[in-house]
């Protein structure tokens, strides 16, 4: 049994609907498509003058961020607000956690304040799974990023970006470039692309930034950027963090940029209508040239809009799945 074959029912209710959103593995193609379709509807809402719908009115969404993030946090806040939910955001710095209150206690206190849903971002892989298992199962848990493991809403907004700009996934060639080893975005993207039927998924990185056993995702590995970008339709650039240099994984940002940085010249090897994506924030001159980030191929700013719609879809679907499970349990109890 490889990890990808294992069943993971924790985030699904008895009818196979989302009741938590923890990671993209174990989710059927139909479910991922439903998320994309629902997000399309929310994009239309976002284009109206009144961008709110009353769907989650009276519900409380709690953003619990153990890891700092302005971008993800604000888009989740906006998504919840546009669903008319009440939003609380808690930035739990690691120092307050080390003052003795366990993660479990923090969440149980919030739950006691009648939160209906938690969006959690944490530095440890598996944090969202842990919370979904040990906090009351009635509370929907949305994973806003856990360690290196998963960032499922980012994965889905990247898929929505690709679908809206390229139509579908069947004949596509997609390249993911950069620090795959430490990237939860890369892991979520590889899983989503595979499930949605993308036939040519490529990862491009030096060996030090590739995880062991990456073949299990069904991707092709390249260590040469020019070769890897040949005729691709989509390029997803990943952020390179400073720490990689001090950890001995790379000699310098300069050398990384020379070998793996996306410049206009390098992009010329891809298809002429290739789109360029990045989860942000961008390190100009480290993984991407400014001209490319701001250029005609870039859809980086659109990704932010799609992100709000995806998060609205996921929040609604998870809340809906919890409701359905409650009903199912009540029926069974009769």
């Amino acid at each position, binding site marked *: 049994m490889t990890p990808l074959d294992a069943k993971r029912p924790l985030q699904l209710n008895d009818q196979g609907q989302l009741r938590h959103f923890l990671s993209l593995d174990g989710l059927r193609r139909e479910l991922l498509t439903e998320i994309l379709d629902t997000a399309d509807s929310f994009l*239309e809402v976002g284009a109206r003058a*009144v961008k709110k719908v*009353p*769907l989650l009115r009276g519900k409380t969404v709690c953003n619990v961020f153990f890891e700092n993030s302005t971008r993800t946090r604000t888009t989740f806040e906006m998504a919840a607000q546009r669903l008319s939910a009440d939003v609380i955001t808690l930035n739990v710095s690691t120092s307050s956690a080390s003052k003795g209150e366990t993660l479990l206690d923090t969440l149980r206190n919030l739950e006691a304040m009648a939160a209906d849903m938690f969006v959690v971002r944490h530095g440890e892989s598996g944090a969202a799974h842990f919370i979904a298992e040990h906090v009351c199962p009635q509370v929907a848990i949305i994973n806003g990023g856990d360690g290196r493991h998963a960032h499922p809403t980012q994965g889905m907004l990247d898929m929505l970006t690709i679908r809206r700009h390229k139509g579908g996934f069947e004949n596509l060639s997609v390249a993911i470039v950069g620090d795959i080893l430490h990237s939860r975005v890369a892991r979520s993207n590889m899983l989503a692309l595979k499930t949605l039927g993308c036939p040519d998924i490529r990862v491009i990185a030096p060996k030090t930034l590739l995880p062991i056993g990456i073949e299990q995702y069904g991707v092709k590995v390249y260590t040469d950027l020019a070769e890897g970008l040949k005729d691709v339709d989509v390029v997803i650039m990943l952020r390179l963090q400073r720490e990689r240099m001090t950890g001995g994984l790379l000699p310098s940002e300069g050398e990384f940029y020379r070998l793996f940085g996306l410049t206009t010249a390098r992009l010329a090897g891809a298809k002429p209508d290739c789109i360029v994506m990045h989860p942000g924030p961008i390190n100009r001159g480290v993984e991407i040239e400014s001209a490319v980030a701001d250029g005609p191929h870039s859809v980086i700013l659109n990704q932010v809009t799609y992100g709000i719609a995806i998060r609205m879809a996921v929040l609604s679907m998870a809340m809906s799945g919890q409701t359905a499970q409650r*009903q199912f349990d009540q029926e069974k109890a009769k």
Partner: protein
Amino acid sequence: MSLPNPADLISQMAVDLNAHLSKRAIAEPRFIGIRTGGVWVAQALLKALGSASPLGTLDVSFYRDDFSQNGLHPQVRPSELPFEIEGQHLVLIDDVLMSGRTIRAALNELFDYGRPASVTLVSLLDLDAAELPIRPDVVGATLSLAPTERVKLSGPAPLQLELQDLAL
């Protein structure tokens, strides 16, 4: 019970609607069908009226009042309103009027687009089972059903009504 033929109802509804609109001096209304059955009825109605007006489609999934009981409808599609709502006279069309909650949701959604000058409600069937003070301005037929009976419209062509008994 024998169900009426939708095509017959729609011819009469076209006549009634014209009368209603001219009585109120409404010259260029905007037509909006509620997905999915209301859109089929609206398309047939526009044909019967000989009108080339664009048709807006409204998905009310995000405005329903039963989210806490029933969750999200699985087949959500974007609404498409190819015209302004602000200051316009609207003709809102649905297939079956039962509790009135779908219409309430539709009104709430429309008002988030803008402030209409008026809304005329047209429904193929009225089951006389309103739970809210909502009445159609133009209706094809009024039916009374047993508590376990439901009626369903299939379409878009031909339009057909079917009776279902939930107890069976």
